[in-house]
C-alpha cells in the first residue's frame, strides 16, 4: 500500500527534489483520489459512515478516519475541511464520541447543529451524505478529564454537550469511580441532543447524576440558579467543566465563584462560533488604522473591529486562511510593524516583527503585514 511507504527523512528529501513540493507524498493525490479518495496523502480524510438526526437542527455524523489519523483524547476538538463551491472551508468541532470507539471500531462522531446563516454547518446538513469524504485534522485542545478519578461537575448548554458526551462515554467505559453530575441546559424538550445516549449512560453508569433543564418551557426563562449548584454534593471538591453559549458560561463562572469553587478547578472550552464580543477595555480603545500589505504593495485603512483577514479580503487579496476564529493558524503570517489586538483575548501585541493570526488580529494604529 502506498500509504505504508515509510516517511523517512531521506525519502522525504528525495521526494522534495523530484516533485518540487514540501509534501511530496501528495504529488500523486490527484490520481489516487480518482481510485479511492481515502488514499489521498496530502490531508487525512474521513468517510461518512452514518448520519443520525438528533433534533430538528442537529445531526451526528459518524466518520471513519483514514487509519493513519492519530486519535484523540476525550473532550478534544478537530478541524474539518470541506470544499464548498470550489473553496476549501475549515471549521472546528468537538468530537462527541469516546476514544474507545475509535480504538475498537475505528469510528469517531461529530455532533453538529445548524447555525443560523452559518455557511459550513448548513452545507454539512444539506449536502453531506453517507460515503462522502471530508478532511479531518489532528485533534487538539485541553478540555481534558482529570487523570485520576475525582468528583466532576459538567455544566453544558445546547450543542455544548458534544465534548461532554465524549467525556461521559469515556468515563463509563473506564468505570471512572467518582461522583459525576451533568447539568444540561436546553431550550425545550425537543432540543435535547443525544437524549437516548444520555439516558442509556445514566442507566449503565451509576456514578452519573443527570439533570436536564429546559430554559424556555415556562413563562419565565429558567436559567442556572444557585440552588442547582447547592444540590450538587461536595461542589467545592469537584472539577468543573463548562461548555455552552457565552451567557451560560458567564453565569456559571460567576455562581461557581460565589460558591467558593477555585478558578483552577474550572475548565471551559471555546464553543461559540461567532467571535465573542470584545471585552469592555478593548471597546474603549480606538481600534483600526492604516494597514500596509507589504508583498502586494497595497494600502487599506480600517475602522472598528475588522480583522486583518477581513481588511485584506476587502482590499481584493485572498490570503490563505482556515477557521476564521483563531484556531487553525492557516492564516498566520508576518507582521513587520505595528500593534494588533487579539479579538479573542483582547490583548494587544508587541509593536515589532512577529507572526500573527490574520483572522483574529485587529489593527491598533498603523500595521504592516507581509502579504
Amino acid at each position, binding site marked *: 500500500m502506498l500509504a505504508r511507504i515509510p516517511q523517512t527523512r531521506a525519502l522525504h528529501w528525495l521526494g522534495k527534489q523530484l516533485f518540487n513540493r514540501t509534501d511530496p507524498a501528495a*504529488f500523486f493525490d*490527484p490520481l489516487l483520489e480518482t481510485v479511492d479518495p481515502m488514499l489521498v496523502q*496530502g490531508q487525512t480524510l474521513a468517510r461518512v459512515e452514518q448520519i443520525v438526526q438528533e433534533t430538528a437542527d442537529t445531526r451526528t455524523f459518524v466518520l471513519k478516519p483514514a487509519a493513519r489519523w492519530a486519535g484523540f483524547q476525550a473532550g478534544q476538538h478537530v478541524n474539518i475541511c470541506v470544499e464548498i463551491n*470550489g473553496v*476549501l*472551508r475549515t471549521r472546528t468541532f468537538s468530537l462527541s464520541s469516546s476514544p474507545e470507539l475509535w480504538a475498537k471500531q475505528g469510528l469517531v462522531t461529530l455532533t453538529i447543529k445548524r447555525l443560523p446563516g452559518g455557511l459550513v454547518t448548513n452545507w454539512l446538513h444539506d449536502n453531506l451524505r453517507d460515503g462522502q469524504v471530508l478532511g479531518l485534522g489532528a485533534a487538539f485542545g485541553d478540555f481534558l478529564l482529570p487523570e485520576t478519578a475525582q468528583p466532576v461537575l459538567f455544566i453544558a448548554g445546547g450543542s455544548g454537550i458534544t465534548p461532554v458526551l465524549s467525556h461521559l462515554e469515556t468515563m463509563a467505559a473506564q468505570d471512572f469511580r467518582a461522583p459525576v453530575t451533568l447539568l444540561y441546559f436546553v431550550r425545550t424538550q425537543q432540543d435535547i441532543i443525544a437524549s437516548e445516549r444520555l439516558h442509556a449512560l445514566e442507566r449503565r453508569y451509576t456514578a452519573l447524576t443527570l439533570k436536564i433543564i429546559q430554559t424556555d418551557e415556562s413563562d419565565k426563562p429558567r436559567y442556572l440558579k444557585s440552588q442547582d449548584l447547592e444540590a450538587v454534593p461536595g461542589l467545592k471538591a469537584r472539577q468543573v467543566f463548562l461548555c455552552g453559549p457565552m451567557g451560560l458560561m458567564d453565569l456559571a463562572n460567576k455562581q461557581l465563584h460565589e460558591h467558593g469553587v477555585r478558578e483552577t478547578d474550572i475548565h471551559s472550552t471555546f464553543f461559540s462560533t461567532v467571535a465573542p464580543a470584545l471585552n469592555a477595555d478593548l471597546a474603549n480603545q480606538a481600534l483600526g488604522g492604516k494597514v500596509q500589505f507589504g508583498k502586494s504593495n497595497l494600502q487599506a485603512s480600517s475602522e472598528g473591529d475588522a480583522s486583518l483577514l477581513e481588511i485584506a479580503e476587502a482590499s481584493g487579496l485572498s490570503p490563505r486562511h482556515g477557521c476564521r476564529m483563531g484556531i487553525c493558524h492557516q492564516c498566520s503570517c508576518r507582521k513587520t510593524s505595528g500593534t494588533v489586538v487579539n479579538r479573542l483575548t483582547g490583548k494587544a501585541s508587541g509593536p515589532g516583527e512577529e507572526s500573527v493570526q490574520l483572522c483574529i488580529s485587529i489593527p491598533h494604529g498603523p500595521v504592516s503585514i507581509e502579504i
Partner: protein
Amino acid sequence: MKQMTENQLQELAQDLNSIRDEIVADLGERDANYIRRVIRLHRALEVGGRVMMPFGFIPPVFVAATVSLGLSKIIENMEIGHNVMHGQYDWMNDPSLHSQSYEWDTACSSDSWRRTHNYEHHTYTNIIGKDRDYGYALLRLSDDEKWHPAHSLQFLSYIMLSVFFQWGVSLHELEFERVRRGEIRMRDKIPFLKDTLRKGGRQVFKDYVFFPLITFPVAPIVLAGNLGANLMRNLWSSTVIFCGHFTEDAETFDEKDCENESKGHWYLRQLTGSSNFTGNKLMHLLSGHLSYQVEHHIFPDLPAHRYPEVSEKVQEVCRKYGIHYNTGSFRHQYGTVVKRILKYSLPDRLRMRLESQPA
C-alpha cells in the same frame, strides 16, 4: 500609444473593472474543477512519460514517452505553475494551489519568478528600460535601443535563448548586463545565486541524474528522452512568450509617460503592449491561455480558462474606444516576431531603407 483623455481613461478603467467584478463574483466549483482536471492530466502525463521512458529502446515508445513528459512539463509550467503563481486560484484556499508557496517544474525558482515576472514585468509591461522582459536584455526589438554591431547576430542569440530558455529565465534576475555596467554589485546577488543554484541543481538532479541512474542499463535513453522533453518545453514556452509582446503591433512605452499613471493608463498600456493568437482548445491549454495575452495582462489574477469568455467583452471595450485589439493566427503572429528580431538586428539606416521598399 493611442492618446486618450484622463476622463476616457477613467471610463475605460470602469468598463474593465466591471468585467473583472462579474467574473470574480462567479468564481466557484467550475473553476476548481477545471484546474483539478488539468492537474490530473499533468500527473497522468508525467507518470506515464517517466514509466514509459526506460522502454525507450523501442523507438515509438521513446517518442511517446518524450512527448508525454514534454507535454506534462508544458502544462505544468504554462497552465498550472504560471497561473497559480499569479494568484488565480488563491480564492480556493487550497494550500497546494497557493500563489506564494507554489514551486514549479523548471529551473527558475518560484520566488525569483514572482519578483521578476509578477511584479516587474506585469507592472512595467513594455516600458523600455523598466521591463527587463522586453528583449531579455539580449535582443534589440525596437529603435528605443541604439544599434550595436553585436545585434547583427541576434537571431542566433534568440535561437540559443529558446533552446536554453529555462536557464535563461532562471538567471534573469541576475541582471548580468547591469552587473557588467557596474550599476549593481555581484555581491548583492549572492542570495539570489544560492537560491538559483539550489533550484537549478534540483532540476538537473531529477532529470539528468536520478531518473537515468535508477534505470541504469538504459540510462542514455532516459537521459536523451528527458533532454528532449525539456527542449520541447523550452522551445514552446519561449515561442508563446515571444508572441505575447514582440509581435509587429505590440507597442513599447517610455518611462516618463508612465510616471504616476492612472489605472486607466495602465490598462491601456496592457491592452496595446500585448498580443494574442488564435487557435483551438489544445493550443490555449498548452499556452496556459497566454494565447489570450491581452486578457491575461489586464486581469493577471483571473483563472486563465476564463479568458476566452472575457475576450468577447474586452474586444467590445476596445471597439468602443478605438483601441487596436492585437490578434491573429499563431503563424502570422510568430512570423511578425521573427521579422521583428531580424529587422532590429540591422542598423537603423539599412532597416529603414528596406522598410521603405514596397513589399
